[in-house]
């Protein structure tokens, strides 16, 4: 058969069965819309990151450290001088308004060395004046969030470190909108002189020092990478204690997260497409069965089975491309809608940058998967005997084994390849594909078994409507099983996500053990603790704890310099800077005669070697450092080298929320070192704010961290994530509904005939509708029950085995899911049956005659 004839036959096939075309297309479109939506959303965010990376970083390059930075400019090669440089010092601290209300905020002191702030992008201020005019040693610029939280106004007072500052401006729009780094509170800007006046750079303050650099316009990422290498080599210590990021590699955590979102949400979206293709396969199967006579005629005329398969597949491809295109266009709308709904999170996307790739992915994947799923049912073409033209009882022919197994293998390979294209990991793709097949298989078995059980129900004892509905459910050729599997799988996905999210959310919200501290205090000076403790007791605080902390750096481990260990770790591969962080980070060392609760020694013993400075180390941290019992660790404490021997290794129950440390030293060795305290106490929720206000007023250098508000923030983020995943799961439900409607519509003629006969016999339209409704309700109930069962098992298994949570999934939610499936099924089924109900009986009966 020539290509021209193939194309003509494909187009001619499109003339019949508009309903089939519509549902084919809809099944594919829904799944593709979900897939493209996820991809387009992620692409849009990434495009935003990429296009605005200079703006987001605040320059071409950022040099960051936890210790004061050297003069970065002096260490740049002569031919690589920066055009702009801004030094930023940032730390969390308490701020107070004139009324004494306090808030934890992130203070950023900017020191413009060369150029203007910001070095890249713009800063929109209220009033609209240059920042140099608004900021001096006695003024601040705040974010709208802080303005709102503390009821600030322009010209009003804000106290930082106990010092008064005037609010001179509000940031109307900031470039770092897409930065998702977790900061403890809203930001405010002041000058370096202002920071010094506030006196916040004391012992223990958790300061981040940054130098932002801007180079000539158009400096390529390769040149920046070269400058970075040269700078690292030139900085003291080989740049061991700094992190340098260029704008194109900034936000690594966010990019990693986006990549994970694309892969795993993409798999959820892929599920919708796979479900849709189940529907497509079902429609194809019905189509082939209904056109057996036509196929027999074509075989008579000389078409080979593979010729017939070819133009059927071509026809499927045509519809798949149309459906995928429609779905892709809907999916592309998702980033636009997201930007309108959450403008603070998402910039308005540039669809022209992402549309091409998204369309190609959507159309390609949609058409590919649809074709693969249609191949097995279309192999029924081989069964059609050409003798059917002469004899309706002609026996079906055997399908060649190569065709049968080839088709099944092709479909399985296709599911795997589609999953791989999303997950980009063969093992994950295999797990996904295997999981989907296993789940679908279990649902299929369950649906078949339940249908059989329904068929065995004693009809005589059931109400008439119920047994008629049950009879319709088990009727051969009703396509019940596949629509139950599809709707069941959709219910399973949505419900499983909801159940897991419900458990995790409940765990997060109740994470605070009854007596665990609800307030943590950082940067407490030793002479302040007594007063703070008294203040706490006046506010009915309980379980008041404190611990001294000395800031130190690792100098040597088992005689080997840390720099050597850093180089060795970097050679093992991966990100060298991240690998060396465990050695170069600031170490917080405490000392205690007895270990606090929730610490269990697993090796060695506590303080049992007289004359030896001992240290106890947390088990996982010991593994990260590569130390064990008998190891020697030398700390650099403000320039003094202090050796300690590791004499015990312990585990820590971090979920106790009590203050705990990786490193606990024996008392007597660090007592005279420069130190600060951290404190913790349990405070009733209604007393927290007043305690915070008083602490901020009397001890402005102390940072108050309220655990409940952090839990609220985390919980809110989880809610949003879960909402997004649930929305995607909703696509799966929608697909199940489309399949249900398609199945019902495919049997439109039979239903119309049934309805006509019943109406002729005197049954009212309402009663006929009720009969149909019972059938759909039973279908939905079976789908919902199976889906809920599967979701419960999946959620329980995941939360108990993987997350190690003991809470059981919500049965109420499962019941609601079953009810929803019933209602959805009834709605969709009745909608599809409307025509059958409305056609006058005589019309149908005449057609039959």
């Amino acid at each position, binding site marked *: 058969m020539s290509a021209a004839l193939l194309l003509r036959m494909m187009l001619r096939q499109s003339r019949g069965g508009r309903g089939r075309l519509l549902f084919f297309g809809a099944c594919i479109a829904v799944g593709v819309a979900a897939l493209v939506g996820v991809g387009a959303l992620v692409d849009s965010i990434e495009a935003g990151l990429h296009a605005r990376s200079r703006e987001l970083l605040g320059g071409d390059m950022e040099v960051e450290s936890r210790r004061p930075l050297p003069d970065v400019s002096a260490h740049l090669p002569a031919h690589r001088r920066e055009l702009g440089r801004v030094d930023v010092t940032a730390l969390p601290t308490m701020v107070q308004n004139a009324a004494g209300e306090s808030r934890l905020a992130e203070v950023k002191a900017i020191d413009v060395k060369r150029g203007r702030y910001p070095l890249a992008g713009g800063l929109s201020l209220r009033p609209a004046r240059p920042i140099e005019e608004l900021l001096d040693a006695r003024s601040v610029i705040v974010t709208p969030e802080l303005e709102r939280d503390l009821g600030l106004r322009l010209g009003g007072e804000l106290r930082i470190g106990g010092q008064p500052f005037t609010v001179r401006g509000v940031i109307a729009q900031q470039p770092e909108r897409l930065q998702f780094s977790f900061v403890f509170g809203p930001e405010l800007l002041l000058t370096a002189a202002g920071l010094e006046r506030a006196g916040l750079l004391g012992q223990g303050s958790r300061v981040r020092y940054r130098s932002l650099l801007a180079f000539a316009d158009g400096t390529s990422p390769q040149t920046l990478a070269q400058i970075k290498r040269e700078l690292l080599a030139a900085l003291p210590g080989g740049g061991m204690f700094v992190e340098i990021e260029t704008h194109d590699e900034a936000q690594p955590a966010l990019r990693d997260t986006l990549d994970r979102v694309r892969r795993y949400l993409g798999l959820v979206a892929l599920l919708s497409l796979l479900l849709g293709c189940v529907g497509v396969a079902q429609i194809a199967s019905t189509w082939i069965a209904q056109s057996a006579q036509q196929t027999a005629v074509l075989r008579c*005329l000389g078409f*080979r089975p593979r010729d017939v398969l070819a133009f059927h597949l071509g026809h499927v491809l045509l519809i798949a491309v149309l459906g995928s295109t429609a779905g892709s266009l809907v999916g592309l709308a998702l980033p636009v809608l997201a930007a309108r709904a959450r403008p603070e999170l998402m910039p308005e996307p540039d669809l022209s940058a992402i549309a091409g790739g998204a369309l190609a992915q959507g159309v390609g994947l949609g058409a590919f998967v649809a074709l693969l799923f249609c191949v097995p049912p279309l192999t029924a073409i081989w069964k059609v005997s050409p003798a059917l033209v002469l004899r309706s009882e002609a026996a079906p022919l055997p399908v060649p084994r190569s065709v049968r197994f080839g088709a099944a293998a092709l479909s399985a390979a296709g599911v795997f390849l589609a999953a791989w294209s999303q997950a980009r990991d063969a093992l994950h793709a295999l797990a996904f594909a295997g999981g989907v097949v296993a789940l679908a298989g279990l649902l299929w078995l369950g649906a078949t078994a339940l249908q059989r059980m329904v068929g065995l129900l004693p009809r005589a004892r059931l109400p008439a409507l119920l047994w008629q509905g049950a009879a319709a459910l088990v009727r051969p050729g009703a396509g019940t099983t596949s629509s139950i599997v599809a709707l069941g799988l959709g219910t399973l996905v949505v419900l499983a996500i909801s159940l897991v999210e419900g458990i995790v959310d409940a765990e997060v919200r109740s994470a605070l053990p009854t007596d665990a501290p609800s307030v943590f205090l950082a940067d407490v000076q030793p002479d302040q603790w007594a007063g703070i403790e008294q203040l706490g007791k006046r506010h009915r605080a309980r379980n008041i704890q404190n611990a001294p902390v000395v800031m130190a750096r690792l100098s040597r481990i088992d005689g080997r310099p840390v720099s050597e260990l850093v180089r060795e770790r970097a050679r093992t591969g991966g990100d060298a800077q991240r690998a060396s962080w465990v050695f170069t980070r600031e170490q917080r060392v405490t000392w205690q005669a007895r270990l606090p609760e929730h610490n269990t020694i697993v090796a060695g013993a506590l303080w049992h070697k007289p004359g030896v400075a001992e240290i106890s180390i947390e088990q996982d941290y010991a593994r990260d450092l590569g130390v064990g019992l008998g190891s020697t660790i030398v700390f650099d404490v403000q320039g003094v080298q202090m050796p300690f021997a590791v004499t015990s290794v312990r585990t820590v129950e971090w979920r106790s929320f009590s203050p705990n440390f990786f490193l606990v030293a024996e008392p007597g060795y660090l007592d005279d070192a420069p130190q600060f305290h951290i404190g913790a106490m349990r405070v009733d929720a209604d007393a927290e704010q007043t305690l915070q206000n008083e602490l901020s007023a009397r001890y402005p250098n102390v940072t108050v961290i309220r655990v409940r508000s952090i839990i609220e923030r985390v919980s809110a983020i989880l809610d949003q994530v879960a909402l997004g995943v649930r929305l995607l799961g909703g696509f799966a439900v929608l697909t199940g509904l489309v399949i249900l409607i398609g199945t019902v519509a495919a049997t439109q003629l039979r239903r119309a005939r049934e309805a006509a006969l019943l109406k002729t016999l005197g049954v009212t339209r309402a009663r006929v509708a009720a009969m149909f409704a019972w059938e759909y309700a039973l279908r939905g109930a079976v789908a919902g029950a199976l889906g809920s069962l599967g979701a419960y098992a999946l959620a329980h298994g995941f939360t108990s085995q993987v997350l190690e949570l003991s809470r059981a999934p919500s049965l109420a939610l499962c019941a609601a899911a079953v009810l929803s499936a019933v209602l959805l099924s009834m709605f969709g089924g009745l909608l599809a049956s409307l025509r059958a109900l409305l056609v006058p009986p005589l019309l149908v009966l005449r057609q039959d005659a």
Partner: protein
Amino acid sequence: MPEPPPPQAAPDVDRAVPSLECRGVTRTLRSGDTLLTVLSAVDLRIAAGEAVAIVGPSGSGKSTLLGLLAGLDRPTEGHVLIDGVALEGLNEDQLARLRRDRLGFVFQNFQLLGNLTARENVLLTLELAGAQDAGARCDDLLARVGLAQRGHHYPAQLSGGEQQRVALARAFAPRPRILLADEPTGNLDRETSASVLQLLFGLREQHGTTLVIVTHEPEVAGRADRLIRLAGGRVVQAEGRAP
């Protein structure tokens, strides 16, 4: 009613080799737990260019025999040969090619493809055969069967007689050596039947096509060169000149 086409020179055929041959053909079919013998030890030879009518009561195996002769079905025992080629050695693809190249069909219920117009139905066999002048031949045949103005109509828009004429045009379009007709007038009224038969035999004479026609109507059988009567799955009578 259109005039019958003028006779054309018949294609060269090797009259020594029968066009169709059955040797000891038996066909049994399973019906539930029962095995039914639909045809039993049928021997027949049909010469090239011959017009043979297969007659018999309902259930005598006429259509089954036709299906076997066309390679649409396979005998349980025995051999079927078309132009000397044994069909049992051919797979489904080869049978399809044989049907495309040598056979034409006319059915009782027309068996037109509903999604194709009348013209496209006729064109289909020509396109499949890769005929260069497919369009012209198609239009010529439609004109010959009197449907030149109805080519753009779908089968659902044509009467029974018109549909059968389209089927005739489709059957003869690729100039098959053998034409098999299963009760071609079974669903038509008397007048329409007469005109269709006129066309069928006229085209057959024009092309010199071997014709095998299954019928239970005496007036149809009477137009054939030879009569083969089936009863109970066996050939009980053969009338007319033997090959």
